[in-house]
């Protein structure tokens, strides 16, 4: 058991602590940082903690260690409510881990017709149209290589970081995580080209899909 891994992500650094007793984990981390910590300087850090034994004290020690290397811990992700509470007490953001998504996308040929529903935990790619009355519900992103005229729900049930892409976005309803949007009434403007929808500042926004 034990074991620590450090991953670079787009958001910064994620340090994963796989259970075990905090003292040992801290020691392991200190060792790793001593050898490679200077590469990580100046980054924001997300801590994924798989152990139940990190209280306020242990977390404080962990954060102190990171700060010595000029890293800024911002978020703790843990299954354990105790660990999350301790993190909040220290002024850190605390989240439950999101369910593991399948690594592969589901590819489906359209049209997805009225009354048909595509449900998948990961990302869904529809080659063809999603017709009015048809729906796509994905744990990950949704990409429609065609007209999206039905309902699309990306990041189901609560992952608002997901996106919906379509060559032509004319949905009856869009949902991303906890957010919901419908196109303005009476406005039909097909031929706008490919678009993507995502959550920004607590609402779903639509932009041209350029890259």
């Amino acid at each position: 058991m034990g074991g620590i891994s450090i991953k670079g992500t787009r958001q910064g650094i994620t340090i994963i602590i796989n259970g075990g007793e905090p003292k040992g984990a801290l020691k392991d981390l200190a060792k790793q940082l001593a050898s490679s910590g200077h590469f990580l300087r100046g980054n924001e850090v997300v801590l994924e903690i798989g152990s139940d034994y990190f209280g306020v004290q242990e977390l404080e020690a962990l954060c102190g260690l990171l700060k010595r290397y000029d890293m800024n811990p911002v978020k703790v992700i843990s299954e354990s409510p105790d660990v999350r509470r301790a993190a909040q007490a220290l002024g850190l953001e605390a989240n439950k881990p999101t369910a593991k998504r399948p690594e592969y996308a589901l590819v489906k040929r359209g049209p997805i017709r009225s009354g048909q529903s595509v449900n998948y935990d990961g990302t869904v790619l529809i080659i063809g149209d999603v017709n009015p009355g048809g729906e796509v519900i994905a744990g990950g992103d949704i990409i429609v290589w065609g007209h999206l005229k039905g309902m699309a729900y990306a990041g189901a049930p609560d992952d608002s970081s997901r996106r919906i892409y379509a060559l032509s976005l004319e949905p009856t309803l869009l949902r991303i995580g906890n957010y919901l949007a419908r196109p303005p009434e009476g406005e039909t403007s097909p031929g706008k080209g490919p678009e993507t929808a995502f959550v920004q500042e607590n609402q779903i926004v639509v932009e041209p899909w350029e890259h």
Partner: protein
Amino acid sequence: MEAKVITITSGKGGVGKTTATANIATALAMAGNTVVALDADIGLRNLDVMMGLENRIVYDLVDVVEKRCRLRQALIRDKRFPNLFLLPAAQTRDKSAVQPADLIRVCEELRPEVNFILIDSPAGIEHGFHTALAPADEVLVITTPEVAAVRDADRVIGLIEAQEKGPVKLIINRIKPEMVAKGDMLTVEDVLEILAVDLVGIVPEDTSIIVSANKGVPVVLDHSSPSGQAFKNIASRLLGKEVPFMELKGRENILDRLSKLFRFQ
């Protein structure tokens, strides 16, 4: 002979299933085929009325299924074409009287003796629809160029494909060329873009259909009727002939043209 079983369905009611069945069956018979038109709309039968055979019904489909008569006794020979037959629905019963397996059995019995069996499906997507679909080798979905009808056609095509009864062929009925020209009605292309299936016929709106239905004389017998010609074309395409689609041109009056000139794009 090994008959082809063709089910005609739509999802939405009132878009012309029965009219299409009566006319395509008649047109196929006119071309020399032995045809049975089978009314699967039990409890709401109409095909007999459209074919002008209402008062000749003695036995019906339910009598056949429940073995009160032999299949041959229930077949009604058409007044004009000796190679066209109607197997009428029962009016006093409902859809539960015939199961999918029953209809498959009836069609199997007919298959060696005829060229075509055309099944007039009831509206809806419930039991009666599934029964009508069960024996089909080919399915014609009929819609009108209206949003609600197209939506229902899309739903029904999805169900047909899920049962692997496709590929579906589409008939677009009651097109009003004037309205299409003005941009007030969905075009054939609009409908095809949504439904993405093969087109087998476009039928113009035609008031002579009403007269023909009331008289029980299918409109394909009226050689001056544009809708009659359209149904004859569908029959030809079902027989494997290449027939160009009718050019539907609306007559534009001077006011329409003026208003089009001044319409802002």
